[in-house]
């Protein structure tokens, strides 16, 4: 019983991390119809920023975390401004290729940076996260409690932003019809910047928490979580924010359960992820919550 609970909690923790990253994919896709390849690397950079700020600048951990969220959010906005916005009128494939380029740039910048480099670096985990809590026979690490809580708070904040504020309304509107949203008097470019800001900030929170759970930093750390989160977004119905959260939790749970109960298959874990992704694309491209759209002739 205790192990089940343990694994369940692990699954929830992992799932909430995926959910945080998946939001960024799903929001950007909803608006620009772009699979933002660089999003996973944005997430990875968040871990490194905490590392830079704590180790190099000797800032307190909580301050580093806050600064990281701000910096990474601005990175997302800058990427959109410099690399994606000039291609607004271009074919979508050009946008995708550019995103792949940005992704490679972000990864290799880490390798090149003197303070980071290609080798693994330790992530500065605060003691709060490593502390062990015991409840009866169940021993729980701080991360397992704090990660889902912080994630839940962020996701609630996001839901509030998207469903209750003016900008949120514009974000949802822009996803269905950019031109008409412009007719409402909304500055499209600004709304898109906000979207990247929010998506990247959530990815940053995800990256900071990810480090607490898996305290090793490496340049390629964003790739696989990125793909899993993207898969989560597809499962939930890409473009659908609640769907992305749901997909994240489902995928996190499924992954932990597979690894826990079929340890022999854990080497194939990534293959399963991509198989699920391809399966959904082929047979249910709108995901669990998505709607079908018909191409106009």
């Amino acid at each position, binding site marked *: 019983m205790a192990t089940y609970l343990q694994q369940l909690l692990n699954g929830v923790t992992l799932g909430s991390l995926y959910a945080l990253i998946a939001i960024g994919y799903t929001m950007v896709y909803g608006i620009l119809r772009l699979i933002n390849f660089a999003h996973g690397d944005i997430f990875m950079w968040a871990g490194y920023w905490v590392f830079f700020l704590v180790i190099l600048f000797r800032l307190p951990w909580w301050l580093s975390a806050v600064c990281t969220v701000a910096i990474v959010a601005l990175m997302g906005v800058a990427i959109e401004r410099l690399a994606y916005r000039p291609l607004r009128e271009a074919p979508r494939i050009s946008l995708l290729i550019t995103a792949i380029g940005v992704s490679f740039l972000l990864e290799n910048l880490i390798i090149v940076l003197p303070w980071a480099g290609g080798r693994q670096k330790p992530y500065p985990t605060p003691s709060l996260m490593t502390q062990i809590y015991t409840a009866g026979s169940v021993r729980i690490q701080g991360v397992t409690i704090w990660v889902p809580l912080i994630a839940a708070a962020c996701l609630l904040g996001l839901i509030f932003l998207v469903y209750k504020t*003016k900008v949120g*309304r*514009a974000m949802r509107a822009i996803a269905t*019809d950019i031109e*008409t949203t412009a*007719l*409402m*008097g909304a*500055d499209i470019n600004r709304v898109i910047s906000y979207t990247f800001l929010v998506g990247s900030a959530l990815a940053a929170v995800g990256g900071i928490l990810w480090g607490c759970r898996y305290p090793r930093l490496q340049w390629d750390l964003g790739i696989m979580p990125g793909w899993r989160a993207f898969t989560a977004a597809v499962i939930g119905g890409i473009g659908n924010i609640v769907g992305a959260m749901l997909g994240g939790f489902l995928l996190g749970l499924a992954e932990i359960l597979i690894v826990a109960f079929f340890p022999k298959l854990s080497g194939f874990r990534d293959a399963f992820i991509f198989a699920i992704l391809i399966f959904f694309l082929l047979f249910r491209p709108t995901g669990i919550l998505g709607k079908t759209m018909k191409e106009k002739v």
Partner: protein
Amino acid sequence: MLEVKNLHVYYGGIHALQGISFSVAEGQVVTLLGANGAGKTTTLRAIMGLVRPQEGSISLNGVSLIGKRPYEIVRMGVSMAPEGRRIFPDLTVLENLLLGAYARTDTVKVQRDLEFVFSLFPRLRERQYQRGGTLSGGEQQMLAVGRALMAGPKLLLLDEPSLGLAPVLITEMYRAFARLKEEGRTILLVEQNARAALSLADYGYVLDTGRIVAQGPTPELRESDLVRQAYLGV
């Protein structure tokens, strides 16, 4: 109020507007008539900054609109209910309406305008928490018009508000427009439904393949065979 001079627009290889000029005075309802492909929608899109004219000028109260982005034009006091309604199906009716007031900060006035829209289209009040996509065609058209009104425009552009609507609903729609007219609103109305438009407007222009072929006060236009000819080829 609105002054369009010698407007030329090329659109996907077509010379869609071939030098049209017209004006809308304050408090007037002006209609642009014409068959499809005549360039009516293109004219409105050019005013809203959605297409860039190759030549000509558009000015609102003497300020040029050329080169301005759509949101800037909305903030200058022009708003449009686009062709085909284009409401946001996933947002509720209320959210659609509030989005129409996106650029405005004076909450008191926005609230007052909301009340006005609800009084104009009581059905929207009943359905304010329903998703836009669940509305019927007529209700969606009301929503589109209401949403455009929420911008508090000096000039309201209506693009084919009767398109795809049953006759009863068209009547209802035009009753609402008549009320707007009574209030002294300035409206530029684009229509295929000539009779409906002429029943409302003060002045009309007839467009044919990118040119203005006739204009005049509506009583004159209504009596002329020109409209009938333009539509039916009789």
